[in-house]
């Protein structure tokens, strides 16, 4: 049974953010790595700015990080989600031409992209 004490963040969790703590939170190299995962190309000054800002935000989240909550189940969604199916009947769907007209490059009714194979990841 979880008690109220488990709700209490560690005493230093909301203490003023020290520069040292921020630096330790996330490094410049990690920011570069995460940007690559997110398919973003950051300029040098953006990398510096995000390193500092993401560090400060993560420092703020230290109260959550510090929680002892091993016995609490996670909630990913406010509703108990179940798969929803409909009757297998033909119904209206989106106009194919209208959908394809939104795309930047189309050929023979298909989305056209630059080469995929052989690319660096």
């Amino acid at each position, binding site marked *: 049974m979880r008690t109220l004490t488990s709700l209490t963040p560690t005493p230093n969790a909301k203490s003023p953010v020290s520069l040292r703590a921020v630096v330790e939170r996330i490094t410049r190299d990690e920011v570069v790595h995460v940007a690559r995962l997110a398919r973003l190309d950051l300029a040098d000054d953006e990398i510096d700015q995000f390193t500092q800002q*993401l560090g400060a935000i993560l420092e703020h*989240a230290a109260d959550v990080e510090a929680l002892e909550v091993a016995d609490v189940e996670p*909630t990913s969604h*406010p509703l108990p989600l179940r798969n929803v199916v409909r009757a297998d009947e033909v119904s209206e769907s989106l106009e194919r031409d209208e959908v394809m007209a939104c795309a*930047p490059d189309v050929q023979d009714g298909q*989305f056209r992209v630059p080469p995929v194979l052989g690319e*660096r990841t």
Partner: protein
Amino acid sequence: MSALEIAAAVRSGERSALDVVEEHLTLIEARDPGLNAYNLVTAEGARAQAAAIDAAVSAGEPVGRFAGVPLATKDNMCTRGIPTTCSSRILEGWRPPYDATVVTRLREAGAVSVGKTNLDEFAMGSSTEHSAFGPTRNPHDPSRVPGGSSGGTAASVAAGFTPLGIGSDTGGSIRQPAAFCGVVGMKPTYGVVSRYGLVALASSLDQVGPFAANVADAAALFDVIAGHDPLDSTSIRDFEPTAQAVLEAGVDGLRVGVVKELAGGSGGVPGLAADVLARTAEAVEALAAAGAVVDEVSVPSSTLGLSAYYLVMPAEASSNLARYDGIRYGLRVDGATTAEMTTATRTAGFGTEVKRRIMLGTYALSAGYCDAFYGKALKVRTMMLEDFARVYERFDVLVTPTTPTTAFELGARTQDPLTMYVNDVCTIPSNLTGHPAISVPFGVGDDGMPVGVQVLAPASHDAQTFRVAAVLEAAA
């Protein structure tokens, strides 16, 4: 005239829908250049729809509950054939091939959308300053922000451009701008209003909801947009919207809790302004005077809401925004390979705040950090649900301020993201729990700017929030 009065006059033939729409378009044309509430004004479409309503009235055919009432539509709701930008360069020029369910429902009810309103890019922000098309200004004082992310819709209603507006609320994006602009804004229970055609920010938090200049109009708007939609797999079945029916019910005997952690005391959330707290206390007194049973109550996990939210929301957003890859719609910037094209497209198309949240979310979900951050944030959601379930055994509704302060000056908080995020501290718990909440104007702050008071209720008790708001409106 209120929305309901306009609709009654149009239905009876006393007023022409076209005249009503023309009047509002003229006002928008004259005053919106100074406010920038609209990304796009759809004057021709609005006139055509209004003329069709007038023709139906003349022919004695039935017209909807909001016949001829001008409506502001947040520019993250899909409108078939009409540009939908989310105030982002990456979607500039995109014309969706379908309508959002809420757009369809309101058109069927006779509401006339006059345009698409400005927002923080992809609804990420609390001031409508993070828009690719420039900031919206607060109609009460153009040197101040209207709040966000639904700042364009809030400003439209506050300026009298439209009696009604539609917004979306992921962490307070309806309620906070409603408070800043002195109008009524409500976030329904998660799943009560269809999200089909709402461009996703954080799918487990997003909810579409109403804006209006008064509680009765907001309740009527809620009753029109609420209800099951087979196109949204998270839509609740068998929800009967009854907001309008309870507006006269009063609060005699209603059990009202004042959330201690959001009332400015020690150990609670810091940074709540004295004038906002004073108006909130007066609102609580007004409810007590109207017969409510008032008591203070502790919701311990509410102090963790901000941190949990700024892990869950960016995590979901980083995943949802992966779809902007330059392949199926929107901007494409050329590259030698698909990966290079996608990177170039996203780099050019997203603004700084969107990039910041994608980075934060990608980091929070990355190997080695996911359990420590995202995993624990999900557990905070459970703790909140348990806390509120316990509190709602003793109380029917809870009252808090909507925002820590009144509307701030443009540019005051754009340099430090954390000072911007703190705006959402009172509104976030309802998104993490999926519960309904309303913001209703209650007086002004020391600076003369509007103050909003928030009423929270348990899941599916959306009508209760309107019932209490009606009493507060009468007392304000």
